[in-house]
């Protein structure tokens, strides 16, 4: 499987010169890209939201990864046709999404916005999405979609009373009611509890067997669980695109900062300081252990045993935000 990286050192192609679909970053040889984003830019006055981004996405699950504000949502909105690019072209299944309403028979979007018509029940919301898709056998499709997100028991309750996780799931059901070929999801796991996340990840994988699924997220570890390919966008630019494992190896080779909330910060820090994966350890003012490591996978593998030895209970282990940004920045820098 090929990995294609955006090469910032490469001379830019001529303005307006489109890349052949098979040469787009992220395109896997032998697989026809379903979504093609070709030299797309979007700016608002002086602010550049997306800068000369090109990639292709084929059947399977692809993660659209980047820190908050990187331009992921803008890219998804350009792909769906909600906003027009300032430059470049976007096609889904060979057609431009913007200005072609019929393409939406084959596309489903899980929108990032939380608000859904609160006066409708979950079932009514899914049903009206099916009606707008003019489905010939509406009710079986509605039941199937609600069943897919395991929301049958709550389907007749008003959406206004749903939790955030339930709203996310009913949005997914509405996006799937017409069995689309291309599914775009903007941060679909936000607000879900661990059990719901597992269920949604399993659903994404299942959908990816036959469909093109593009899922945006700012959490690297999360994307790893469902995506075989990733597209990384940082500061509106394409940082990397292609096989997840190859890109992950590049990311892992970079120093990471990990933040640990524990019952015994000093004992845990002492245990960590002698470990070969650790580059530095400190305790922040909130009594959390901040560890810098140059082998994040080895570190995560060793952490449970080190914690047990130091009799420290772990409450939270998370990548420090600044670390994630620096990882993405590292990808951009090459």
């Amino acid at each position, binding site marked *: 499987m090929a990995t294609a990286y955006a090469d910032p050192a490469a001379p830019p192609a001529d303005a307006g010169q489109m890349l052949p679909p098979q040469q787009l970053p992220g395109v896997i040889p032998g697989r026809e890209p379903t979504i093609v984003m070709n030299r797309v830019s979007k700016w608002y006055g002086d602010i550049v939201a997306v800068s000369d981004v090109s990639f292709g996405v084929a059947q399977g699950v692809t993660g659209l990864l980047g820190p908050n504000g990187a331009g992921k949502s803008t890219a998804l*909105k350009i792909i769906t046709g*909600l906003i027009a690019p300032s430059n470049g072209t976007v096609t889904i299944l060979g057609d431009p999404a913007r200005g072609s309403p019929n393409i939406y028979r084959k596309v489903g*979007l899980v*929108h990032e916005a939380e608000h859904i018509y609160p006066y*409708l029940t979950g079932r009514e919301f899914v049903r009206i999405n099916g009606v*707008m898709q003019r489905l010939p056998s509406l009710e079986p499709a509605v039941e199937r979609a609600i069943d897919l997100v395991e929301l049958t028991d709550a389907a007749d309750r008003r959406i206004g009373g749903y939790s955030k996780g339930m709203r996310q799931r009913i949005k997914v059901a509405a996006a799937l009611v017409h069995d689309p070929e291309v599914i775009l999801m903007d941060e679909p796991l936000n607000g879900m509890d661990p059990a719901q996340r597992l269920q949604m990840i399993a659903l994404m994988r299942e959908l990816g067997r036959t469909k093109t699924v593009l899922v945006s997220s700012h959490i690297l570890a999360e994307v790893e669980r469902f995506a075989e390919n990733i597209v990384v966008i940082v500061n509106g630019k394409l940082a990397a695109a292609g096989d997840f494992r190859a890109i992950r190896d590049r990311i892992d080779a970079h120093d990471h900062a990990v933040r640990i909330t524990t019952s015994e910060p000093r004992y845990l820090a002492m245990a960590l300081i002698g470990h070969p994966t650790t580059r530095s350890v400190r305790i922040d003012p909130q009594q959390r252990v901040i560890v810098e490591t140059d082998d994040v996978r080895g570190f995560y593998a060793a952490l449970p045993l080190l914690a047990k030895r130091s009799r420290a209970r772990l409450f939270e282990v998370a990548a420090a935000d600044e670390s994630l940004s620096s990882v993405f920045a590292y990808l951009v820098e090459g």
Partner: protein
Amino acid sequence: MTLGWRLAPIFFLSLRQFIGGKAVLAVAGLASLPMLFSLIYRINPDIDRPRRYLDDVFTEFMLPSVLPLAVLVLATGAFGDELEDRTLPYLVLKPISRFRIVVEKLLAAVAISAPIVGGFTALSWLFVFWGEAGDNLDMLWGMLAAVAVGTLVYTAVFQFFSLFIQRAILASIIYSLVWETVLGRFIPGLRYASIRHLVSSVYVSVIDDRRIALTGSFGTAGSVTAVLIITAVAVLLGTWRLRRLNIE
């Protein structure tokens, strides 16, 4: 789901949206204002002759001020609320033409506004002509026709504003109060270029009473044709705008 929902899902979704919201109360509150004048007349019927009194209230207060202000609430909310709540993608990312979305939204706003405004107009008429209503039915039909036509055209224009201007409510109020009310009154030629004049023309044409006259009336056919043209232009411009709108 009923056949109606299947045929016009955005129309019925918008009806639910309006009925469940507070905006409909604002429409009712504004539309009930002329009833206060009718009640004043009921308390003191010696103020004026009833037909003249109600004609003054309707043409000088209801048509230029109350009708556009009551209508703009739902007209600007039809798309404004969807944009504000970020629910518009649920409508536009469907295999449905933008024209149909605009038309169904327009009809839903009219379907709620017109009965409310028309209902309070009828009550105003009833209070003034209490006990002699049967002799003044022509006036009721004239007022209701004007309300129906006015609701349609104002809704189309204000809905179009909401797709073009971020502060559509403010723009609609300024348009109603400045163009339709103040300028139309003080600049004679401008009056003929106002929606108010078209709607007033429908009113006087249906009543067909020499005592209730309008200088430069376009007649029923002319006024209704002009109203339909303005509505069609507003719908087409709204459709054009919705096709080009960037939905964040």
